[in-house]
């Protein structure tokens, strides 16, 4: 489909959204919010706050990860689908602002700090609400940790009344519906015959892509008890998720529990909250996506789908060295077990004179074990690996708050002191040379060899200390001001650079409370906001990089014996300091016609300075070619618009439509500067992602680059003017001499050009919910536009030179390209609209003493995708800066759909 058609569909879709209506993610102005350390009425906050409540998520009880619940619902929030059942999603708030890995938003669950894996430990049904903080005035509360945004999760609490029990469960089936259209066995034979190529024909006809699939059975159960009285409440919930993927053996099991209780003591002088949540997640993973799908697609289809009956092992094709028999590969074991336990307690004292003191402590322990076995069929002599990573995190803080209303003046002040200490430790060992596969990884003594570099352990304990003051002032419910000042100290930085200062200021004007608008009844609320603030980042870096420390670098013979020698393995930077992001934001919220129309607009512009990054440095004088330093800068700006309409709201019929669209722009401003008197500048072109596979090792196979002055992640490619006959019936890519120097060179800086960006310029999220009496329907639609995708899969599988060792696409023989040079020929438009899910629910009418509510529902996931992209799916990695950014390269997880039936009962 042409991009034009696609765009027109978007326009229609948006127009459709705009003409219909609902309840929006934008927070109602009178609700009470807990924002980080501060609790206040939403009308008193000056920043943009997005909140999703559990009720708004139409398919909450059928999703297995809380992250899925947010997808498409928050402007500026990108959720990249992880492929497969066990893969984690990647989350970005307002894009990538750092070149290090500190781009994951801070996750806070009931006050406990963590990362995305903490979120995975919460059963979706246990979530009361998500609050998403993006503006500097709000994120700066978190100082060092807030630079990439904050997602706060509040879990469901018990409430006053008699004990309630609820159950919800679901049963689903996932199945693949589309794989790549490779040559089948007959086609494979006939192409070989036509061309007089001798092939190894085993006489079978096997579709290996189908052979490695399974029907994924998925079930979820969740049960909760809750109750309470005037002084306290409690809730206990247990959940179980069992989710098979559509590839053989792929499985994720998650046991979760969440308990909390709250009690007032001494006539309300002290309020005590206790919480405990934990999860044990076990998964069977696909070891290497590229190896798995590259093998399934390109393996000789005349091979059988069973072991060789004579030898008892899988037949291999030795000449196709980059792939392996996909069914043999399925015998690779890769098992994870991730346990998390988190406990927390908060004591809140109602002190005299309107002072309130809250003391909070949390301890989180995670243990991640990974076990792998590569059988002798795919790895000469077999290999077993076992590794363990442990994280302990201790957090303690004390918050003193003071609230006072004097006439038209309202004050709200807060002071905070906080300490955090993490301990990361772990070990792993690798054993090879097995005589039998039967032990797997369960008895490492079954392997004969332990290489020196195969066993290791580590320990790291970063510390943070923070102090913050925050002041809210509201005059006459019209003019709002917030100032906050936070200072953070991190053990990771050099002696004189440990502390960072992160202030912010913001203001809001509630125009609708002005006398001149009082008479306009159509306007319920109009609030104009602006703010400016600093946030720090240190998440992406390791400890111990600022001192001269030594580690083992190998074994050397000394005399007649052997010894482990030590060396400093990195360039030390004594002056390492905080990366700082300064954000300006402005926007407004508008609510019309009794909330029937909601409109919210936000603009932000942030500049990341002193950017922490592993800069390429010149060797000599440096011994190593990278240096972790604070040099460069990057700009992110964007506009977020969300609209909501509720055109119909009657007893029988509800219709609401929400849509949000975010436009993001990113520019890498500089990667050069001064380091201890020396001018350092990073290379002009630096590759981010490249192609892999047969014939793609090294050389000119870099696709996505980071180039100063450009958005992060641009395609920098030679230009192909068309196919050129090679004189023997085949075709090669004709490459243009872009710099007109009379010769074609595809080196960086020569005949290459910037051909587009890998990250979308615009992201769309839309949900439509409709209720007719007891039947409700929810539809979620997401989209991304303005970016490109490099179709490395087609480049590989259209190359007839790789036939017959590697199978090719069905259309490859006809086009007869005999070339695998990476040019812009396979660069395609990445725009897409994805119908994420539709849920139909029915609240069953009940007249029972025991049941208070019963709801049945059906959800279909991944309904359809509209896209002009010629590959399997345009939903590849278009947001995370890593080695797969923007490149579709033989990692084609089959397109699959999940059908889920859900039951929800309250007793």
């Amino acid at each position, binding site marked *: 489909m042409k991009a034009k058609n696609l765009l027109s569909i978007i326009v229609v879709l948006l127009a459709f959204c705009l003409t219909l209506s609902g309840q929006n993610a934008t927070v109602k102005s009178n609700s009470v919010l807990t924002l980080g350390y501060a609790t206040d009425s939403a009308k008193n906050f000056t920043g943009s706050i997005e909140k999703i409540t559990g009720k708004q998520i139409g398919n909450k009880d059928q999703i297995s990860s809380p992250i899925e619940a947010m997808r498409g619902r928050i402007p500026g929030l990108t959720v990249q689908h992880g492929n497969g059942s066990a893969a984690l999603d990647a989350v970005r708030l307002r894009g990538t602002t750092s070149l290090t890995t500190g781009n994951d938003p801070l996750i806070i669950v009931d006050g406990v700090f963590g990362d995305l894996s903490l979120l995975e430990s919460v059963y979706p049904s246990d979530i009361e609400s998500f609050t998403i903080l993006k503006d500097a005035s709000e994120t700066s509360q978190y100082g060092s940790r807030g630079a990439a945004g904050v997602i706060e999760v509040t879990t469901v609490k018990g409430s006053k009344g008699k004990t309630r029990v609820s159950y919800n469960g679901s049963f689903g089936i996932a199945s693949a519906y589309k794989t790549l259209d490779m040559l089948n066995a007959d086609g494979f034979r006939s192409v070989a015959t036509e061309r007089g190529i001798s092939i190894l024909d085993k006489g079978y006809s096997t579709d290996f892509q189908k052979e490695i699939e399974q029907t994924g059975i998925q079930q979820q159960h969740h049960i909760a008890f809750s109750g309470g009285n005037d002084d306290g409440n409690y809730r206990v919930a247990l959940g179980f998720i069992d989710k098979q993927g559509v590839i053989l053996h792929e499985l994720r099991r998650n046991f979760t529990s969440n308990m909390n209780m709250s009690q007032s003591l001494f006539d309300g002088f002290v309020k005590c909250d206790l919480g405990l949540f934990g999860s044990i997640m076990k998964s069977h993973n696909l070891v290497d996506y590229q190896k798995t799908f590259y093998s399934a697609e390109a393996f000789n289809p005349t091979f059988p789908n069973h072991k060789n009956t004579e030898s008892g092992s899988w037949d291999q094709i030795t000449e196709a060295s980059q792939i392996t028999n996909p069914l043999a590969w399925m015998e690779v074991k890769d098992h994870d077990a991730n346990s998390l336990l988190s406990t927390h307690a908060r004591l809140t004292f109602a002190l005299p004179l309107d002072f309130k003191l809250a003391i909070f402590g949390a301890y989180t322990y995670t243990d991640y074990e990974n076990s792998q076995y590569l059988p002798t069929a795919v790895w000469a002599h077999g290999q077993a690996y076992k590794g363990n990573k442990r994280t302990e995190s201790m957090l303690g803080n004390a918050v003193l708050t003071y609230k006072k209303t004097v006439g038209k003046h309202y004050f709200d002040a807060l002071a905070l002191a906080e300490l955090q200490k993490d301990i990361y430790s772990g070990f792993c060992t690798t054993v*090879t040379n097995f005589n039998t596969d039967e032990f797997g990884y369960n008895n490492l003594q079954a392997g004969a*060899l332990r290489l020196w570099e195969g066993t290791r352990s580590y320990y790291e304990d970063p510390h943070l200390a923070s102090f913050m003051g925050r002041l809210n002032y509201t005059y006459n419910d019209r003019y709002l001001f917030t100032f906050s000042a936070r200072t953070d100290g991190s053990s990771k930085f050099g002696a004189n650079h440990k502390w960072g200062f992160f202030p912010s200021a913001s203001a809001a004007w509630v125009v609708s409370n002005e006398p001149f608008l009082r008479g306009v009844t159509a306007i319920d609320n109009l609030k104009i906001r602006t703010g400016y603030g600093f946030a720090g980042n240190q998440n992406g870096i390791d400890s111990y990089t600022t001192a001269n420390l*030594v580690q083992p670098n190998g074994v050397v013979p000394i005399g007649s014996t052997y*010894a482990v020698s030590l060396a400093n393995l990195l360039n030390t930077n004594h002056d390492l300091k905080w990366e700082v992001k300064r954000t300006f934001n402005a926007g407004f919220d508008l609510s019309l016609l009794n909330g029937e129309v909601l409109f919210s607009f936000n603009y932000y512009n942030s500049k990341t300075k002193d950017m922490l990054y592993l800069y390429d440095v010149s060797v000599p004088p440096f011994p190593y070619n990278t240096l972790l330093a604070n040099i460069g800068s990057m700009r992110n700006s964007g506009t977020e618009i969300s609209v909501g309409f509720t055109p119909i709201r009657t007893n029988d019929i509800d219709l609401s439509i929400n849509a949000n669209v975010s436009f993001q722009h990113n520019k890498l401003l500089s990667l050069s500067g001064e380091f201890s008197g020396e001018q350092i500048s990073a290379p*002009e072109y630096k590759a981010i992602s490249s192609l892999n596979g047969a014939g793609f090792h090294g*050389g000119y196979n870099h696709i996505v680059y980071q180039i100063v002055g450009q958005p992060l992640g641009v395609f920098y490619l030679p230009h192909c003017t068309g196919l050129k006959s090679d004189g023997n019936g085949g075709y090669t890519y004709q490459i243009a001499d872009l710099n007109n120097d009379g010769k074609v060179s595809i080196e960086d800086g020569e005949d290459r050009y910037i051909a587009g960006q890998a990250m979308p310029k615009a992201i769309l999220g839309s949900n439509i919910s409709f209720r007719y009496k007891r039947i409700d329907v929810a539809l979620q639609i997401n989209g991304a536009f303005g970016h490109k995708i490099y179709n490395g899969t087609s480049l590989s599988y259209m190359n007839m030179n790789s036939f017959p060792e590697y199978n090719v696409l069905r259309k490859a023989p006809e086009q007869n390209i005999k070339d695998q040079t990476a040019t812009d020929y396979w660069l395609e438009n990445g725009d897409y609209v994805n119908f994420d899910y539709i849920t139909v629910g029915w609240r069953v009418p009940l007249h029972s003493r025991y049941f208070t509510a019963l709801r049945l529902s059906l959800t279909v996931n991944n309904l359809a995708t509209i896209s002009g992209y010629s590959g399997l799916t345009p939903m590849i990695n278009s947001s995370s800066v890593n080695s797969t950014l923007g490149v579709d390269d033989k990692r084609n997880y089959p397109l699959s759909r999940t059908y889920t039936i859900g039951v929800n009962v309250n007793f």
Partner: protein
Amino acid sequence: MKILKYILPISAILLCSCNSYLEEDPKDRIPEDDAYYSSLSSLYLNGVASLYNYIGGYDDSQGLQGTGRGVYDLNTFTTDEAIMPTRGGDWYDGGFWQGLYLHNWGVDNYAIRATWEYLYKVVAMCDYSLIKIDDYGELHGISTVKAYRDEVRAIRVMYYYYLLDLFGNVPVVDEVEYNYQIGRKAVFEYLFNELQDCASGLSTSRSNSPGDYYGRITRPVAFFLLAKMALNAEVYDDDNWTDSSRPDGSNIYFTVGGKKLNAWQTCKAYCDSITALGYKLESNYESNFAVYNEGSVENIFTIPMNKTLYTNQMQYLFRSRHYNHGKAYGLGGENGSSATLEALNVFGYGTGSVDPRFDKCYYADTVRNLAGNVVTLDDGITPLVYHPREVALDVSTTSYEKTAGARMRKYAIDVNATKDGKLMENDIVLFRYADVLLMKCEAEVRAGESGQTEFDAVRNRVGASHREATLDNILAERQLELAWEGWRRQDLVRFGKFTRAYSFRPQLSGEANGYTTVFPIPSKVLSMNSHMTQNPGY
């Protein structure tokens, strides 16, 4: 605001007490002072022995030999000795190997850059060790550290020697200062004097056999390097290598043992010194490359290999042999590197008089496993046959796509090798005595003397027929004796033949002036370091 007034000073007090909380206390690494200054033995271990970890390696471009896309490949696949043919989907690798073969490697070749960075990394580590050794000496007021200094300086010279040979006009960084591009001649003179000066402080023990000096740079190793540098003096003493004129070795003088000797005399003197230390030819050529070759009386300097102790790999047999060939040994293969047509011609392959070393250096024709049985392809019927003369830059879609080319043999198969055969026990031979004899022979011939004695010794050991010791025959003999040992590029440059055209390789335009005899200084290094200028021609 009142509250803030109190909070700020309280915070300030807390901030100070927090500073100790924010001190790092690493447990999985230790302060370097403990590693260098705690005792003389730890100073040696971490300041000196530690540097030998970098001689071999397993990552691309790391290590002097054994790994891919590094010093060895830049010296081998750029010549008429070896070729990595594109084989259908395999070995195209974005044009990397063809680029090396055609001398069309570009100024931004990542492998050239990685090699540069590897060599300078070790130089920088040597510089750092010297600082630590001096500090230790000062701290403890002892002079024993001179031997340590000499050893580290010798290691550093060896790395500079590779830099000088590959890149020409290279910056000299030592423990005191950073000298940008002082000219190839000046670098050469500095290196030669430096090595002469520290060689006297080195032990005369063998380095290739287990014992106190196993794997270390000892005096014979330093003498070998001095002989090499003297033999190549005409190249290294030439600041302008694109002006078609070169100094005459007879007029380049060195001071050896108090005597002023020209380049040829110097080379001979150091060769004789090695002979005097007891090095000689093994009666059996193959003993030098056996699985347990530590007992060789011929090997001078090797990369110690031990699969459970060291990470050093030998990837060259693995990447050369056919998949089924490797499988026949219970190992792996990548079906790549092959002999060029020129190498086949030098060996007389397919003629009536094949050099006896051909079968010791190459697998050709029908492949057999260690039991002598014919190795077959995946169908279990078709025998695996290598076709040496079908080799070309790109053999894709030909009937010989997977079988063209004679493959690397040289080293005995270690059936207990692991990692597909890359972790094998045979020590990798860097310097050996046969080369000393050929160097001396060449120096004599270049000085107008005979050289026949040394020439005959090398040929007679393998039972090769008599040949005259002429320059042409010496160049051929170096190919025959030292195939797959990483000397070809340097030899061709010294003989003025590196830039000539040969099979599938036309001479580049402008190459006749010799600009490709050194690699470009990687453009990324230049872009980050404004003090340096590019080599001429690039």
